[in-house]
């Protein structure tokens, strides 16, 4: 492989770690979110500048994403989560099956994380909502973790949320 191939224009995300499981198995225990996020965060943080704190920060973000798929996913099909790295950023690619009505909802919620009023919406949600909506969780990632969030439309019923997290820069 020559240097030009190794360095495509956008910068290449190197794969780090992934898991896949039956959605039904995933949904069988709420603690899977905590356990998977803690474990994956530790695994990928060991060679970060501050492994302990990177892992803590990363686990926080990943857990919220897994919780989103836990609450919004449907039991048929598989959930897959792959982690990548490019320089100071990690990318989370989370695919899971969700009911048809949810696709439009996710599309809108993801788009709102990039709107100018994202912060105002976030504050409003904290001060008035009884429980956090999935929209607020995506706003939380964008605001508190400087995440960039995209949606990839797969073959229904699966959707993929792609989240880039520049945590190395925030942690150290």
């Amino acid at each position, binding site marked *: 492989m020559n240097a030009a191939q190794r360095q495509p224009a956008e910068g290449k995300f190197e794969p780090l770690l992934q898991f896949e499981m039956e959605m039904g198995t995933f949904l069988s225990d709420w603690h899977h979110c905590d356990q998977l996020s803690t474990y994956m965060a530790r695994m990928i943080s060991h060679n970060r500048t501050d492994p*302990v704190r990177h892992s803590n920060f990363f686990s926080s973000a990943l857990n919220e994403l897994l919780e989103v798929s836990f609450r919004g996913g449907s039991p048929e099909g598989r959930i897959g989560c792959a982690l990548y790295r490019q320089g100071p950023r990690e990318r989370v690619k989370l695919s899971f099956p969700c009911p048809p009505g949810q696709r439009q909802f996710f599309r809108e919620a993801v788009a709102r994380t990039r709107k100018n009023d994202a912060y105002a919406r976030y504050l409003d949600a904290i001060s008035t909502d009884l429980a956090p909506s999935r929209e607020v969780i995506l706003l939380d990632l964008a605001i508190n973790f400087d995440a960039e969030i995209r949606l990839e439309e797969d073959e229904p019923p699966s959707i993929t949320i792609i989240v880039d997290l520049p945590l190395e820069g925030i942690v150290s």
Partner: protein
Amino acid sequence: MSTAILSAPFQAEFDANSQEFAFAGVIRPRSVDEIAHSISALRHAIEQARGVLYINVKRLAQMNNTAFHAFSRVVLDACRTRSDIRFVVVTSSVVGWTERMFRHLGKIEPQITVEVYDSKFYPGQSFVEDTSFIPILRTQTKMTWRHERTILPRHGMRAGIHMADICCGIGDFAVLVRKEFQPARIVALDHSKASLAYARDVAANFGISDIEYTYGDASEMLLEDNQFDLVTCRHSLQIFNQPDLLLKELYRICKPGGRVYITNEKNSHCLGEPRSQSIQWTYNEVAKLFGHFEMDVELGPKSRRYLADAGFNDIRVESFMVTNLDGDPQDFADVITAWENVYAGEMAVKRGDPPEFIERFRQGFRDHIFAALHPKGYAGWPIWAASGRKPL
């Protein structure tokens, strides 16, 4: 592997005496019902509180949005019904997301302020976290290592162990230990960003990537309980104003049956010949100067008591004297120069000492150097190395 953060069940408790509601651990409920008990505890705390209620999240390792929203609601609602109460949320710079997440509450309600407790949390901090402290650490470890490499195996150091060096400074000790004893894992923690940056640079230059340097407060660590076979903490109980608190944390992260190893000085016992009187006067003053900033550099011989009070058994204490005869006398002199620069040049100035005092104070260091470099001279710096075993 396990670069572990607290994973035990969480705590949410109110201390009426300090009007403080403290969260600790991992709080990731599926629904609000799971934390209903803690929510009513927080409501109850607010009812009882007068004036200010502190909400301490220093040791909160994780909290999901479900919990964050639920607890925030209680506090925000209270702001609307109780104009007589203020809230101070105490976050830490170590758990980065807490600072980022909780600060929004202050934007919503002016009755809520968010503080970062560890920007200024012990009196000696401003000196030891400054880059000017680095030459002291660099020159000291070079001298103490000659002794400690033979002492350490008597205190639990051996190949293949999991160890943590807490208050690691510039991390040189961790690098030396790694080379000499080949532990399986080393976590090295300090609260000085300057020292850690230096440590990481050194490690990178030596191609070392397996020492886990981490920023943290040794008195409020996020590391899990019972993880390490050996926990070392060198020259630092004497720097932090609550050594018993540090020791409690060292005990907590140590495995049952593992050991905690500490080294400390008794500065007033530094000595030299010739010019012993001037030297002795200065080091007596060093002890007082540190005392002024709530640091006990006379702690060495108290190690046994501290270890016993913290619950350790099989306590071993030994002392050794770093001297000008250990190697090149200039190395010894370099330590003293580094001390003079910070102790006389910064700390005494900060205390507001008059120029005559500072001049006499400096003279003792110079005389110590004179003794060290004198062809027939002798100069010494005594250190106490002690360790205790955490009961099984």
